[in-house]
Every structure is written in structure tokens, then in C-alpha cells.
């Protein structure tokens, strides 16, 4: 009889940050447990303490090099509240929105083409040395070129609005520190139409893949869940920059709707587990076992009532109709949803470039100081919450970050187990391709692992002292 075995996938590749997967097989080779572990630690929630409030949007964005704009803007929104500013000048809000659309576009393009496309184009079982962007460039040079140029367009928008392509400084408490010069705007107007054409082609690619592989997609880590995102006040439209919280169940029933996001802590709480630096949020009223939910592009497609740009709205309706269920639960449909959002971003960028408010000079508002501020945004990977308290000396005393990857923690772990059970359980030989299936499931969530690990002082730590034979001599545990 075989011994129980542990399979470790480490590191998980083509995701942002460092993580590993452990799969425990019993003596019959059946999957007993499978987990996604986040093995790095960042701790921003703690070491931001004592820093001055206007530094926060610049410091916390250093969490990530792929979507720093999301953290920059979420923190800036929280600091707007702390500085007593409830309404930004039009120029400031539109510059921030333009920055955010550029960010979502470039991040989604990076994810779809650079990280996920090798799996989709060459197959999950393709040799590992083929599953990379360089092979995409070699075999499909035009597609690869477009991927690079679309990402560049998004990055150029970020540079024009934030000052730098990565880690800019433009969003300041109460506003923005620059507007968009006419000559810069005109440069973007020359290429934005081509970007829209390419976004439509990319959308068709993602849609066709999903439809052509409908059976596989429908059975690959596809399970119902609750979904949450911001939606626009009033009509419930997709709004990546601002809105209220909406949570729905797997059938589309309302759990809460149009909830002002500064009340997030009334409905959500976070659990910690000993084997991960990443917390597990859940709906307070329902509890950790069934109160988990998912966020991200597919979650947004499920939660919103409509999209306020015509091409993306039509694409969303096609996505929803194609699945024949009230809501779409197939994790791989995230790629289709992601490309709908790229199209939406290009449409919004086009709209904004024609708006003269971007050349305005009223950049900053002021108000009466408050002690606490919450900023929420829809980051590329999903809902992002920044919550701060600041003392009378302008120094941060409290910080809580719930990032998209954290919201999706339970969902990703379930996806890992689902795929492991289907593709690894009972197999006489475990191949690299089988293990890549597990990574494909994680990758579909586009996790940003480094963004998500801040649970300093809250993990239930356990230390074991073992002798040379592996026998436990002593054990110490700290409960939460």
C-alpha cells in the first residue's frame, strides 16, 4: 500500500508575488486537502503607522508594481475623506478616472496576453518551456505586438496622469497635482481608435475561446458563489472608480445593495488561518463557512445592472446570454469578462479625452479634517478597500487593507481543490501538465499575492519542536 504523499507547486508561476500550492494525497492517491499558501509577507498595514497622511497614497502603492494606481487612488480617496473633501473638482476626478482606466486596461492586457494566453493558446498540458509570452510572440507575432502596444497605451495614460508609468505621485488628498496638456491629449487621440479595434479583436479571442471550449470551461473550477463589487449610485452600472457596494448570491438575489462603502465593516469581517499570511473575509451575518464571496471582472459582470458604454454593454449581454444561467460561475470566463472591461476602459478613455475638464486648473479642494477615512475602488483584480485613522498630528494610527486577492482567498482555495480532485486524484502518475491545471485556475483570478499579506500580529502562530526522528517534543500555539 502506498504512503500518503505531499505534492508542492512552488512557486506558482505567472502570477504577481510568491505563493505555493500544497496537495495532500492519501494512501490511495486521492486528494485529501489542497491549499494555496501565500508565503511572502509585506506588512504595510503596520509600518504605515506614524507616517503623515499626505504620504500615504505614495507609500502604499509600493505594495505592487503592476497595479500601484489602484492603491494610490484608493488611499487618496480615503485621504480625501480625512481632509474633509467629499466632492473633488471636476478636473481632479476626471484625471483620476483617466489614470484608473489606463491602469485597468494595461493590467488586464498584461494578465490576458502575457500571463494567461500561453495556457489558452498552447494548451494547459503544453510543455512548460512553451507556456510563456516569448512563445506567443514567436508563433503569433501580430497578437504579441498588439499585446505590447495595448499595454504601452495604458501605461502612457498612467504616465500622463500620474507623472510616472509606475508609482506616480499625482493623486493628492483633495485632488490631483496636474491636468492633461492639450498636446498630450492630441497624441492619445491619434491612437485611441486603433486601441478600440484591437480591444474588440481581443474580446473576440477571449469569447471564442470560452465558447469553443464550453464544456471544459463549464467544468473547470466552476462553482457558484456570492459576488461583490461597487456599482454606480442609482442605476447600478459598472463604475470602476466610485459607487456603492452590491453583493448578490449565486442566483442573483440581493444580499445588500447600494451600501455606502464606508459601512463595509458592518457587513464584512476577516478571518485568519495559521497556514497563510492572507486573511479570509466573509459576510458577517452568514459566517465564514458559507459567507465567502468573490470579486473581480467576472464578479462585476454578475453584479452590475449595465455598462454605460455601448460596445462593452453589448459584450456583457452576450457573455451573460451565452452561459444560459442567471449568473456566470465559470472561473475561466474571467478572461472574457476582463476583455469586456478593456473595451469599456478604451471607450471611457475616448470619452474623457474629448472632455475639456481635463484641461481645467481647479485641481484641489479643502475641507475640515476628520479622524477616519475609507476609500474603495474597483481595481483590475476586483474590489479594493483602504481604511485609515489619522491622529491630530496628521499621523496614521490605523490601517486596514482588504485587497481583491484577499476577497478571493476562499474562492481560490476552493478552485485549487476542485481542480486537484478532478485532475490529480487517483492518477497513477502526476505530470507537470496536471499540476499546471491547478495554476491555470489560480491564474484566472489574476491574484496579486504581494498586495494581500499584511496580517501582522494576527496570525494564530504555532511552533513545533521536533526531534531527529520527527517526533514532536514540544508545541506552542498562539490563538488569535
Amino acid at each position, binding site marked *: 500500500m502506498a504512503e500518503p504523499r505531499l505534492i508542492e507547486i512552488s512557486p506558482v508561476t505567472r502570477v504577481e508575488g510568491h505563493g505555493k500550492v500544497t496537495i495532500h494525497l492519501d494512501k490511495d492517491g486521492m486528494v485529501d486537502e489542497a491549499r494555496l499558501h501565500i508565503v511572502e509577507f509585506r506588512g504595510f498595514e503596520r509600518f504605515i503607522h*506614524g*507616517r*503623515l497622511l*499626505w*504620504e500615504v*497614497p*505614495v*507609500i502604499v502603492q*509600493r505594495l505592487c508594481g503592476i497595479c500601484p494606481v489602484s492603491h494610490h487612488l484608493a488611499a487618496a480617496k480615503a485621504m480625501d475623506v480625512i481632509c474633509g473633501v467629499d466632492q473633488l473638482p471636476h478636473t481632479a476626478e476626471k484625471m483620476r478616472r483617466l489614470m484608473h482606466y489606463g491602469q485597468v486596461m494595461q493590467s488586464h492586457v498584461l494578465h490576458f496576453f502575457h500571463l494567461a494566453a500561453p495556457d489558452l493558446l498552447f494548451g494547459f498540458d503544453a510543455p512548460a518551456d512553451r507556456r510563456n509570452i516569448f512563445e506567443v510572440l514567436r508563433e503569433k507575432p501580430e497578437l504579441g505586438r498588439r499585446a505590447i502596444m495595448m499595454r504601452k497605451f495604458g501605461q502612457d495614460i498612467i504616465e500622463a496622469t500620474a*507623472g*510616472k508609468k509606475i*508609482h*506616480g*505621485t*499625482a493623486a*493628492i*488628498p483633495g485632488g490631483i*497635482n*496636474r491636468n492633461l496638456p492639450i498636446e498630450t491629449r492630441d497624441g492619445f487621440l491619434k491612437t485611441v481608435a486603433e486601441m478600440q479595434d484591437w480591444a474588440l479583436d481581443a474580446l473576440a479571442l477571449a469569447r471564442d475561446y470560452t465558447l469553443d471550449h464550453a464544456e471544459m470551461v463549464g467544468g473547470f473550477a466552476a462553482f457558484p458563489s456570492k459576488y461583490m463589487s461597487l456599482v454606480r449610485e442609482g442605476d447600478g452600472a459598472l463604475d470602476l472608480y466610485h459607487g456603492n457596494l452590491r453583493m448578490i448570491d449565486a442566483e442573483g438575489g440581493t444580499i445588500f445593495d447600494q451600501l455606502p462603502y464606508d459601512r463595509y465593516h458592518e457587513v464584512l469581517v476577516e478571518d485568519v488561518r495559521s497556514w497563510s499570511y492572507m486573511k479570509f473575509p466573509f459576510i458577517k451575518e452568514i459566517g465564514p463557512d458559507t459567507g465567502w464571496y468573490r470579486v473581480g471582472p467576472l464578479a462585476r459582470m454578475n453584479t452590475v445592472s449595465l455598462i454605460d458604454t455601448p460596445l462593452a454593454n453589448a459584450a456583457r449581454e452576450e457573455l451573460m446570454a451565452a452561459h444560459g444561467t442567471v449568473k456566470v460561475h465559470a472561473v475561466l470566463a474571467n478572461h472574457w469578462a476582463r476583455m469586456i472591461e478593456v473595451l469599456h476602459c478604451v471607450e471611457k478613455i475616448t470619452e474623457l479625452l474629448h472632455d475639456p475638464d481635463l484641461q481645467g486648473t481647479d485641481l*484641489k479642494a479643502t475641507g475640515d479634517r476628520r479622524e477616519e477615512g475609507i476609500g474603495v475602488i474597483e481595481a483590475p483584480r476586483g474590489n479594493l478597500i483602504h481604511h485609515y485613522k489619522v491622529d491630530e*498630528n*496628521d*499621523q496614521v494610527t490605523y490601517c486596514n487593507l482588504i485587497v481583491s486577492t484577499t476577497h478571493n482567498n476562499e474562492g481560490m482555495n476552493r478552485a485549487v481543490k476542485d481542480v486537484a480532485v478532478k485532475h490529480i486524484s487517483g492518477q497513477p502518475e502526476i505530470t507537470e501538465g496536471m499540476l499546471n491545471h491547478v495554476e491555470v485556475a489560480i491564474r484566472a483570478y489574476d491574484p496579486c499575492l504581494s498586495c494581500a499579506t499584511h496580517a501582522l500580529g494576527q496570525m494564530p502562530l504555532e511552533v513545533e519542536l521536533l526531534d531527529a526522528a520527527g517526533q514532536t517534543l514540544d508545541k506552542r500555539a498562539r490563538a488569535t
Partner: protein
Amino acid sequence: MSGFSFQIDGVEVTAKPGQTIMEAADEVGIYIPRLCDHEGLRHQGGCRVCTVKAGGRSVAACTQPAAPDLVVENETPHINKLRRDLVGMLFNEGNHLCPICEASGNCELQAMAYRLGMTEPTKFPYLEPCRPVDASHPDIALDNNRCISCGRCVRASQDVDGKGIFGYVGRGIHRHIAANGPDLRHTDAEVTDFAISAEVCPVGCIIRKREGFARPIGERDYDDHLIGYDIEKKRDE
């Protein structure tokens, strides 16, 4: 005694009696790097970044008087290496996190590192001190993690503002600048003081609250020019 001439890097320079090497160099558009020296403040000769070789001796150009027929070496590989090491030690002695510092782009220490070609971490160990931020004043904050003990604020406050808000405390490696009171709130510091102005603190230690990142990237002091550009451009005029 009338004016006299001496040489800096082979260039004939005319000086007036009593002028330091740096003062004479500035007038003719020769930049000698400096951090603790600042126009309008008495010379200190503390940071030694302005070290030059004069008559074969290493001296601080900000305090050493010029002399007839003196031969001064300024821009040599050896001297710039010495300066780069000095600047490197300043970086390693404090916590200079340029990517998140609101002074980035306006910071003379950072600009000096660029000018001297400091493109990578130095060989010196990081001391990583843990210094509290004094944000008690309603309009001013002091982040001593970024202080390089240049003393410009001490001289500005004493000599220009006539207040003596800042002073040195401690000895040796523990010597640092502190507010003359239990904290900044309990001094008579005002944001309009010369000592608090943007031009006095060369780094991001003295902070005028709420300015932060209001000045965008691309419009900061050293975004387009090396430090010393304002002096060197005189040679082209």
C-alpha cells in the same frame, strides 16, 4: 589688497581678498559640490562634500580662503570618489527612502548622488536608525530619519530668524539635530521662518505640512538639471 588670481582645474580664477575658494568659484561659474553650505548662511565646513585639493592639501572649499597662485583640484576622479563615498555614508547613516519621500526631485542629497554618479547602493552597511517623527506642530513636521546633520536649519534659525529653534544634541555618532524644547509644538517655530523654508533643509527632514506631493514630477528642482546647474550656467553667459 586688490584682486588676485588662482587656478581651479587649470582655469584662471580671479578672487577678492577674504573670499573662500567656493565663493570665488561660484562667481565664475565653477561648481564645487556642497551640502552643508548655503547662500546667506555662514560657512560651516561640516559635510566635507566640498573637499578640494589646494596646494596638495585636502581642504573644505567653503571655509578655505583663496590665495594668490593657489592651484586647486576640484573635478578629479579621486576627489569625486571621495565625495561619492561621503554622500554614500550619509545615505547609509539615515533612512533615505527616495521612492516615498516628498522631497524626491527637490532633494539636494539625492541630486548630489546623481551628479556624483552614485548609481547603486554603496558598500557601507545600512545603520537603519529608528528615529521618531515629530509632527506635533500644526504646520511643521520633523522627520529625523532623513536628517544629514548639515546644520543649515541651526544657522538659519539662529542667524537669520534670531530664534534658535534647532540645536545639536548628543556626541559622536549620536550627535543629531533636535528642536529646542520637548517637541516642535513647544517652540516658537513658525512655517514662515527662514529655517523652515524649502531652501534651507537640503533633504526631506523639515516638512511643511500639507505640501506633500502637490508639486508634480517634471516640475521639481532637479528633474531636468543636475545640481549646480544654476552656477555652471554662468560660464555660458
